[in-house]
């Protein structure tokens, strides 16, 4: 691997004919990925806007609905995703310095952590299904219709604690937004897991090294972006509700 570095860079098999050298090719790839990520930012931005608008309109309902989410599962998943971003960054690092074994290991860890996140998300979705919180008629046999906690009743986390001024219709709006945002996020995670599998296969075949690591770098950018989306989703969906409702 070390003698390859001294070889003529122009001769690298991964160099496309329309690029001068590997450096230029790598920079163009990174730039292209960032342009794609901008479109992604705008895509999620629209949903964040919808969230902000409805939360501003229905603060009490959003607080009630948000309080039904499991804050600890959300926090755990945030930790899992941050750790996966860390291992992804390390995967890029080990590719850059040409250490194949830790590179493969980091990619495997990232993939496993990503799947862990999706698993926990599945548990959370199932919980919402059980409590009939999936909006509209998305599940025809179980239309939206959560049980509401009665005044003076002992706390039951399966029931919705509907705060004053909130209606079930407004809570349903929260859950439309919740499922749209976390669902799109989860879809991005699934695509990311697919991309990681691709990286893993070619990483095992020793395709990537110090001269050629664009794919690892670029998919890394994508993975970190998905992490950032969650960094915002976690406090907005799980946490902000804790106190919005307390406005008198």
């Amino acid at each position, binding site marked *: 691997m070390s003698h390859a570095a001294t070889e003529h860079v122009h001769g690298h098999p991964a160099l496309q004919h329309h690029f001068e050298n590997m450096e230029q090719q790598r920079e163009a790839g*990174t730039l292209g990925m960032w342009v794609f990520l901008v479109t992604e930012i705008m895509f999620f931005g629209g949903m964040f*806007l919808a969230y902000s608008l409805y939360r501003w309109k229905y603060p009490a309902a959003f607080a009630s609905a948000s309080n039904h989410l499991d804050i600890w599962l959300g926090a755990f998943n*945030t930790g899992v995703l941050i750790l996966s971003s860390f291992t992804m960054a390390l995967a890029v690092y080990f590719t850059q310095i040409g250490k194949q074994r830790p590179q493969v290991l980091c990619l495997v860890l990232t993939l496993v952590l990503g799947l862990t996140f999706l698993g926990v998300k599945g548990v959370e979705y199932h919980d919402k299904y059980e409590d009939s919180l999936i909006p509209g008629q998305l599940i025809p046999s179980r239309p939206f219709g959560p049980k509401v906690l009665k005044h003076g009743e002992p706390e039951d986390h399966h029931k919705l604690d509907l705060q004053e001024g909130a209606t079930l219709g407004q809570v349903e709006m929260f859950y439309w937004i919740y499922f749209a945002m976390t669902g799109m996020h989860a879809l991005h995670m699934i695509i990311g897991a697919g991309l990681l599998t691709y990286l893993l296969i070619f990483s095992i075949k020793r395709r990537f090294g110090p001269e050629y690591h664009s794919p690892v770098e670029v998919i890394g950018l994508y993975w970190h*972006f998905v992490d950032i989306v969650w960094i915002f989703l*976690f*406090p907005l969906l*799980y946490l902000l509700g804790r106190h919005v409702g307390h406005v008198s």
Partner: protein
Amino acid sequence: MSEHIVPVRVYATIFLILLVGTALTVWAAFMDFPWRLNTIVALTIATVKATFVVLYFMHVRYSARLVWVIIISALFWMAILFAFTFADYVTRDWLSLQIG
């Protein structure tokens, strides 16, 4: 080549900062801050975390100037999206108040 390789030490530091930030935001959610401060605190922590990810995990701190331009333009258009939409929705009630 001119490529910057970020040392593991930096990655580990950022990782720890992100974990601390997560713990902090959960803790802050249970506190009763006055006015809308809970929202502001949560969003500030999230923005700081995101900035660290962008600068170090995504290597933007060491990236070409053009990458900076692309990112800032995205934030700029997001700001337009939010500012114009809210300028509309927030002021709708003002108008009906004057008529009615």
